[in-house]
């Protein structure tokens, strides 16, 4: 990804689709993620503790979801874009070990005067729509 790839606000319109990202949730990925993002709560890497809370297995934490939404936006908007806001991000269903989850997004609206784009994003898996998130990204000319 290089600076030249940054999307121009003039070229963006409501309804544009961000290239979706699929990623498998494995216990190894959750362990790598917990070590890197410092959320060491047991529900995110210990199947027994997660299941005792009613979850099907250890499940992805909020910081992973935030980071993956950032990746989705960054891959679409390019390196010069500034991520201004993520949220509300709502977690409705677990993203657990064994699930392949897909991060998806569309352009909700464009504010050319402010140079910002509002995005509507979500996570989907075989369990349905598991997470929803809004976001605001500032783009260059």
């Amino acid at each position, binding site marked *: 990804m290089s600076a030249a790839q940054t999307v121009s606000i003039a070229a963006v319109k409501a309804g544009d689709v961000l290239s979706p990202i699929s990623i498998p949730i494995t216990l190894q990925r959750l362990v790598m993620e917990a070590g890197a993002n410092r959320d060491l709560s047991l529900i995110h890497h210990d199947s027994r503790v997660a299941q005792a809370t009613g979850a099907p297995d250890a499940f992805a934490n909020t910081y992973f979801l935030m980071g993956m*939404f950032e990746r989705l936006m960054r891959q679409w908007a390019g390196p010069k874009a500034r991520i201004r806001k*993520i949220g509300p991000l709502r977690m409705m269903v677990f993203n657990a070990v064994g699930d392949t989850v897909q991060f998806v997004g569309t352009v909700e609206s464009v504010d050319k005067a402010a140079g910002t784009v509002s995005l509507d994003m979500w996570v989907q898996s075989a369990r349905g729509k598991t997470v929803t998130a809004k976001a605001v990204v500032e783009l260059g000319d």
Partner: protein
Amino acid sequence: MSEPSWGLWGTWEETETFLGKEIGQSTGPDPVEKGSIRRWLEPKEFACDIHTDAEAAKAAGYEDLVAPASMVFSYGIAPYWRPGDKPAQIDDEPTQIPIPVIFDVPAPCDKSFATSIEVEFFEPLYPGDVVTCTSKLVDIKHKELRVGKGAFLRQEDTYTKQTGEVVAVSYLDIFRFVAPESEGASS
């Protein structure tokens, strides 16, 4: 190993006394640097050179290599161990992520989970920056959900860097509750 705790016990009257007040502050032990950024990108299969290469970041208008915006949360977490802490024992309660609205604010609840988060980003994070997170309890909304009776507690977190500049402000909603079968069992 004992079971993890899901929150500090107390009455709703005690919870109310924390409303509008600072309930916690933590400073991350490590400054922003390339290695921790790479390890954060790795499990997300996230390839973007503004986060790994200073020249690419400068070409995109940043002062230096820039940390991903949502890494601010991780940089603001206090260490899980520091020199001088007592040695861990096998029966110790497992360490959870320190969320003040769960572990430092009393409530008559024995379970909790996060339902929603919203964050606005301001100043970018560059190598060498150190992040402090200051938390406030800003709202309490009582509610009965399918899982049990309790309240949504809203925690406002302000992330600043060593210069005092605000990096991000987030609002985290935590539902703290008692499941119907355990109601009245704890006091």
